[in-house]
């Protein structure tokens, strides 16, 4: 199973590269490609903040994300963003 998973994962990673090479992108397509990462990342952020395994759940980590996001918005250094988010979440969980 592990080998299958590893193979599958690698296939995705390389497949994306091959797809990019093969379809010589038009400027339009190229713009879509560069928009993909922010779209997927935004989705990832949402899932990490709200996903309670199939339901939308607001939790300590959601609050932590907001704290970190605020710090990021205020141009705090990366490390500070990470630490603040973690600390806020941990703090809330202690309550």
């Amino acid at each position, binding site marked *: *199973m*592990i080998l*299958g*998973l*590893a193979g*599958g*994962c690698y296939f*995705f*990673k*390389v497949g*994306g*590269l091959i*797809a*990019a090479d093969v379809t010589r992108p038009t400027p*339009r397509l190229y*713009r*879509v*490609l*560069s*928009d*993909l*990462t*922010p*779209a*997927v*990342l*935004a*989705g*990832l*952020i*949402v*899932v*990490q903040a709200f*996903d309670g*395994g*199939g*339901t*939308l759940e607001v939790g*300590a*980590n*959601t*609050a*932590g*994300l907001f*704290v*970190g996001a605020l*710090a*990021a*918005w205020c141009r705090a250094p*990366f*490390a500070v*963003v*990470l*630490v603040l*988010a*973690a600390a806020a*979440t*941990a703090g*809330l*969980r202690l309550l």
Partner: protein
Amino acid sequence: MGNRLKLFWARDHRRDGVLLGAAVGIFGVTFGVLAAASGLSALKATAMSLLVFTGASQFAALGIVSSGGDPLSALGTALLLAARNGVYALSISEVLPTNRVRRLAAAQLVIDETAAMSTSQPAMEESREAFWITGISVFVFWNAGTLIGVFVGEVVGDPLSWGLDAAFPAGFFALLLPHLSETRKRVAALLGAGIAVIGIPLLPRGLPVLAAGLGAVIAAIVGGKKR
């Protein structure tokens, strides 16, 4: 040697890449601990972290199998969670080396963190550096963490109690911010987030994030029509 190190750290993306790696490494320890607790052999756990090298998939597969789930559905869920790496690869293919061997090696390192880091840089040179430094850092820390977790056990405790699970979306948000200054990308991100929100209750795990990619497609279509 001290001066060299200072110069290395001076560039933000290098420092942040290593930081991300360290954060991932802590989760790696958790993975190792969980794997060992689930009865997975050290060899299998290490192999997973080396070969699969995608945290979400590894945790999902481990979780499903160790709670008695069917290996095939574990594989399916894990693959769904890994599919977004393919989307990243499609999107950042320019950042990767052109030399075939190096390109194939680099492909293994295409994950959330490297995609986020490399796309938040202003120029190609920084993007490439960010990709490699983040990629190697995450690879080293993740695997070292797994090893530590498997052999040493509950050293770090639960990352959740440290709130580390919030650190990642916050970090990704920080990396996303530069994109948001461009209208197109802001729209794509908002659409992506919206689709993901709708998708969480409706779609199986892994799909909401993939579906979020549609946000980019929709933004492009609508944007094209406006002209």
